[in-house]
């Protein structure tokens, strides 16, 4: 199980920052694919914690609260922006494409995060939380305020889309590689 009991009542601000700024930034970056925006979201999340964190009654939920707050702030910021053109995927195949782990290992984080950006927007946050492995699927449902069944379908569909994109990306990369 994901350890969520770590920041109990004795938690202080510095401990929280030290423990969670990295995964929070990585979550923010997965959503925005922009370092400045991800930094802002991470800082904003801790600022909100500093002002409203005392309202949280269940201290064991600090981590979930932080991720949930960051996601909420991300959605707020997105509502202020004009939606950017979105890559349309073909109809999802019933069968998941097979991506060799060795192929994924050859890609860098940036490429994988960019691939996530081409997945249907509704699945992106769920997938990022799934792959960051900071939370159980039940906690992911809590963070995103959706039923577990929704998390389940978003992960299944999102993974299928992501794997297909990664497969195409890897094929493109290979095609562009200089021939010796």
């Amino acid at each position: 199980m994901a350890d969520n009991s770590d920041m109990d009542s004795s938690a202080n601000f510095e401990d929280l920052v030290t423990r969670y700024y990295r995964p929070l930034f990585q979550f923010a970056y997965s959503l925005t694919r922009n370092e400045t925006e991800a930094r802002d979201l991470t800082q904003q999340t801790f600022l909100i914690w500093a002002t409203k964190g005392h309202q949280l009654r269940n201290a064991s939920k600090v981590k979930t609260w932080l991720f949930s707050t960051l996601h909420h702030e991300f959605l707020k910021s997105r509502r202020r922006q004009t939606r950017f053109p979105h890559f349309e995927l073909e109809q999802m195949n019933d069968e998941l494409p097979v991506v060799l782990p060795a192929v994924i290992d050859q890609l860098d984080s940036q490429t994988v995060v960019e691939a996530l950006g081409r997945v249907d927007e509704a699945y992106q946050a769920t997938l990022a939380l799934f792959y960051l492995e900071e939370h159980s699927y039940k906690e992911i449902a809590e963070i995103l305020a959706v039923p577990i069944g929704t998390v389940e379908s978003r992960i299944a569909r999102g993974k299928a889309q992501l794997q297909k994109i990664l497969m195409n990306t890897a094929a493109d990369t290979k095609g562009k590689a200089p021939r010796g």
Partner: protein
Amino acid sequence: MDSQRAREILAMYRPGIDDAKDPLISEALAEVRRDPELAHWLQQEQTIDAAVGRKFRQIPVPDGLEHQILAEHKVIRPTIWRRSRALLVAAAAAVVVLAVAGYWLRRPEPETFDTYRQSMAGLVSGDYKMMLETNDLNAVRQFLAAHHSPADYVLTKSMEELPAEGCALVAWHGRRVSLVCLDRGQKPDLFLFVVNRSALPGAPSSHTPDFARIGRMTTASWTMGDTSYVLASQDTEDDLRKFL
């Protein structure tokens, strides 16, 4: 449970992260034990998940982010530190950490230039601490630039003649604001807030200063190019004019 349903459930199952004893997962895993094809699929799926997951957990985190977050939450007025020990003790009791400043800044308010100006004046009306304490104006500019805060500001000649007190990074409704504090010795400090004009609805369009009294602070606001400025001080309008 059939094999297809088990796949849907197990697609979200990560050993060691999700609870294998959860009835939903446990039932699907039982199906895996009965179905070799499903078992093969699960093994393949989890290997791919692990490879993709590694990439997400390798996303580089900027150097200094932790320090920056912590620095934004330490707030005490430096001019108070410089005064007597008695004042220091009193100040310590009255320290308002950024939590309070943050509350002040985060309360619901329209995102207009007027509320921005009030927020900034309010911020320096109370106690605070510069994130960087230095007399060097160049160091101030470098610090702000390094932290992606507005740093291409233009100081008037009379401001440039003052030593710096320090600077701070301020977030206002997601906008980055630079605060430059200038030291006037025995006289009240000058606080210059710098923000990108386009980020601020209703920001002044003119370089002619607009004066406003906010609480005990006098403020002057103007725009030059893409940058909007608010200069604040616990001083009179006439005194402030000397720096514009």
